[in-house]
C-alpha cells in the first residue's frame, strides 16, 4: 500500500532543489513522553495518496477562472447580495427554531454523546453523501447489530497455549505489591507503636528518677523548715528565759530593798504608836474610865447628903432659936414679972415638944434623905449579915 519515494540523493538530478527535504507532518502522539528523535536518514515517507499537497481527482472538473476574464462588477455585486440574503435567511430561520430552555444558573449546555458506548470523536472519517434507491417491496432483513467502525490498525499474533498467561507468574508482581503494601503499612504501625512504647519506658525511667529527686528535695526543704522553726523556737525560748531572769533579778533587788526599808519602820511605828497611846492596859483603862468617875460621883452624893443634913440642922437650930427668942420676948413683955420663976422649966418642955413633931416633917419634906445609898445600906446589911 505504501510506496516509498526514492531518495533525492539517489535521484541525482531533479526539477526541485530543497533546503530541507520535504516530509510528512508528524502525527501528535497520544501520550506525553520522550519524543523519539526523527532521524533524517531513516525517515520513511508515508502514503502520498494522503498527502494534502497532492491534488486528487480529475483536474478537468475543477473550476478555474480563466486568466483573461475580468470579473463583471454587476455580476459580482449580485452574487454578494444573494450571499448576504442567504445568510440573513439562515439567521432568521435559526431564531425561529424551537430551542431547549436556557440552562439553569451556574450550568451550561454542552453537547454530549448519548450512546451507551462512547466513541472517540477525534478522527472523523471523511464523509460523502451518496444516494441510492432500494428496490421496492423487498423483505427487509433484520437490522444487524450496530458495530461502530473500528479505529486503529489490526495486528494479529499467534499465541500458543500457556504462552500468554501463566497465573503463577503473573500473580507474583501483583501479590508482591499487595503484600508489600500491607507489610509496609503494618510495619509502619508496629514501628510507631514500638517507638511510643520505648518513649514511654524512657519517660517512666525518667519519672522514676525525677519523682525520687523531687521527694528528696521536698524532704530536705521540709527538714530545713523544721530546723528553722526549731531554731526560732529555741531563740524565742532563750529570749523568754533571759527576760525572766532579768525580771527575777529585779524582783530580788526590790525585795531586798523593801526589806531593808521596812526593817527600821516597824520599831519606829510601834514606838510612835505607843507614844500616841494606841497600846494600853485594859484593867487600868477600865478603872480610869468607869470606876473612878463612879467613885467620884458616889463621894459627891455622900458629901451632898452630909451637906443637906448640916443645912437641915442649921435650919432647925435657927427655927428653934427664932421660936425661943420669940417666946422669950413675949414673956418678957407681958408676964415678965409673974412667970419669971416658972419659965425656966417650961422652956425645956417646949423645947422638947418642938423637937418631936418636927422630925417627921423634915423627913417628909426631904425625900432624898430617905433614899439612902442602897449600897451603903446593902453594905450595912451585908455587914450586919456577916
Amino acid at each position: 500500500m505504501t510506496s516509498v519515494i526514492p531518495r533525492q540523493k539517489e535521484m541525482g538530478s531533479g526539477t526541485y532543489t530543497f533546503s530541507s527535504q520535504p516530509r510528512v507532518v508528524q502525527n501528535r502522539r497520544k501520550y506525553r513522553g520522550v519524543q523519539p528523535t526523527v532521524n533524517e536518514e531513516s525517515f520513511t515517507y508515508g502514503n502520498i495518496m494522503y498527502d494534502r499537497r497532492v491534488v486528487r481527482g480529475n483536474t478537468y472538473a475543477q473550476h478555474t477562472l480563466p486568466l483573461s476574464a475580468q470579473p463583471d462588477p454587476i455580476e459580482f455585486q449580485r452574487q454578494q447580495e444573494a450571499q448576504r440574503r442567504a445568510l440573513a435567511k439562515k439567521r432568521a430561520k435559526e431564531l425561529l427554531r424551537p430551542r431547549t430552555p436556557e440552562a439553569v444558573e451556574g450550568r451550561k449546555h454542552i453537547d454530549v454523546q448519548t450512546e451507551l458506548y462512547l466513541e472517540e470523536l477525534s478522527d472523523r472519517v471523511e464523509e460523502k453523501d451518496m444516494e441510492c434507491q432500494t428496490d421496492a417491496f423487498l423483505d427487509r432483513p433484520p437490522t444487524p447489530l450496530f458495530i461502530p467502525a473500528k479505529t486503529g490498525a489490526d495486528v494479529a499474533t499467534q499465541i500458543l497455549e500457556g504462552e500468554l498467561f501463566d497465573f503463577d507468574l503473573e500473580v507474583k508482581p501483583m501479590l508482591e505489591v499487595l503484600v508489600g503494601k500491607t507489610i509496609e503499612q503494618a510495619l509502619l504501625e508496629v514501628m510507631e507503636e514500638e517507638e511510643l512504647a520505648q518513649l514511654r519506658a524512657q519517660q517512666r525511667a525518667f519519672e522514676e528518677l525525677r519523682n525520687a529527686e523531687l521527694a528528696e528535695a521536698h524532704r530536705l526543704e521540709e527538714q530545713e523548715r523544721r530546723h528553722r522553726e526549731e531554731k526560732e523556737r529555741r531563740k524565742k525560748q532563750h529570749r523568754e528565759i533571759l527576760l525572766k531572769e532579768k525580771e527575777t533579778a529585779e524582783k530580788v533587788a526590790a525585795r531586798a530593798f523593801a526589806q531593808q526599808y521596812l526593817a527600821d519602820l516597824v520599831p519606829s511605828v510601834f514606838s510612835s504608836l505607843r507614844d500616841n497611846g494606841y497600846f494600853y492596859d485594859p484593867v487600868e483603862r477600865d478603872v480610869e474610865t468607869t470606876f473612878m468617875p463612879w467613885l467620884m460621883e458616889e463621894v459627891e452624893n455622900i458629901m451632898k447628903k452630909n451637906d443637906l443634913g448640916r443645912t437641915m440642922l442649921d435650919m432647925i437650930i435657927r427655927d428653934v432659936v427664932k421660936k425661943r427668942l420669940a417666946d422669950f420676948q413675949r414673956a418678957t413683955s407681958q408676964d415678965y414679972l409673974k412667970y419669971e420663976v416658972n419659965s425656966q422649966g417650961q422652956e425645956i418642955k417646949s423645947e422638947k415638944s418642938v423637937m418631936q413633931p418636927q422630925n417627921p416633917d423634915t423627913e417628909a419634906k426631904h425625900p432624898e434623905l430617905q433614899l439612902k445609898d442602897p449600897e451603903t445600906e446593902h453594905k450595912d446589911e451585908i455587914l450586919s449579915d456577916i
Partner: protein
Amino acid sequence: MAQARISCCLPPNIDPTKSPVAFGERALPKLNEELKDSELITRQRALMALCDLVHDPENVYQAVHLGFLESLKSLLHDQDSTVRQKATEVFYIMAGHSVGRQGILKSDVIPAISKLLDDPVVICRQNMHKTFEMVSELPAGAAALVKANLVVQLVQKLECELEDIQMIILETLHFMLQTDVLQALSAGAVGILKGKLSHPSAGIRRMAAKALMDICVPLEGKETVCQEEVVPLLVHLLQDSDNEVRANAAGALMNITITTQGKYAAINSGAIPKLLALVSDGYSRVRLNSLKALTTLSEAPEGRKVLLADVNIIQSCLDDQSEAVRRAAAIAIQVIQWKP
C-alpha cells in the same frame, strides 16, 4: 472486541470502604477535598483512607500543612457516628507524632474535641480520651488541657466512664497533675481516687496510685490526702501483687510522709514493716520509692527508733545494681543514724 455492555461487577482487589488514593503528592489534597464533600459515603471513605495514611509521619506533616485539622474539626460535629469515630481516630493517630501534636495544639483542636465528652458512641469517647492522653504527654499539651478547664470534667468522668476509658483518663490526669494540682483538688479528685484504689482491676489501681503520687507533690495535696485518710489504704496497697501498684503506692507514701502529719499517719498505720519488706523487692522503682519513704519516715523520732534496729536491711541495698537506689540507700542510712 469492545462491546456496548458495562459489567455490574466491580473489579476485585478494591476495598469499597476506602476511597482510592491519588498518586503521589496529589493524594492528600484530594482527600482533603473529599473530606469536605457533602455526600456521606465520600467523607466516610476519605476518612478510612486517611486513617491508614496518617501512620506515616511524612503524611502527617503534609496533612497538618494542608489544613486537614480544620476540616477534621468540622467533621467532629457530624451527624454520622462513623464519621465522628474515624475523625477522632485520625486525631489519635496524628497525636502519636510530634508534628501532629504540635499541629493539634496550634489549631486549637482541644476545645472542639472536648465537646465529644458526652458522645453516645463509646469508640468516639475512647478515641477522644486517647487523643488527650497522647497530647498530654507533651508538657505544653498538658498545659493546654489544663487551660481548657478539662481537669474538673475529667475527674467527674472518672466516676461514670467505662473501665478502659477510666484507665486512659487516669493516665491523662497523671500528666495534667504534673502541671496543676489545685484545680483537681477543688474538684474533689482525692475522694474519687481513694475509691479507685480498691478497684479490682490492677491497671486502675496502678493509675490511681500514680495520680495520687502526683497530687501529693504540693503541700495542699499532702494536707488533703491526710485529711481524707488515704494513708491506710496506700499502706495496704504496699502488699499488692502488681509491681507498678506497689511502686506507685510507695511513691505516694514517699510524697505524703514529707509533712509531719503524714509521717505520723503512716507510722500509725504500720507502714514501716511493709516498706522494709519492699526494700528487697525485685523491681527497682519499688525499691527506690520505698527507700525514699523510709528516709522521710526516719526523720520522725518514733520512726528512727524502729528503723535503727533494721539498718542492716537497708545496708544491703548499698551494692544495688541501680545507681539511684544505691544513692537513696546511702541517704536513708545517713538520716536514720543521725544523732542530734
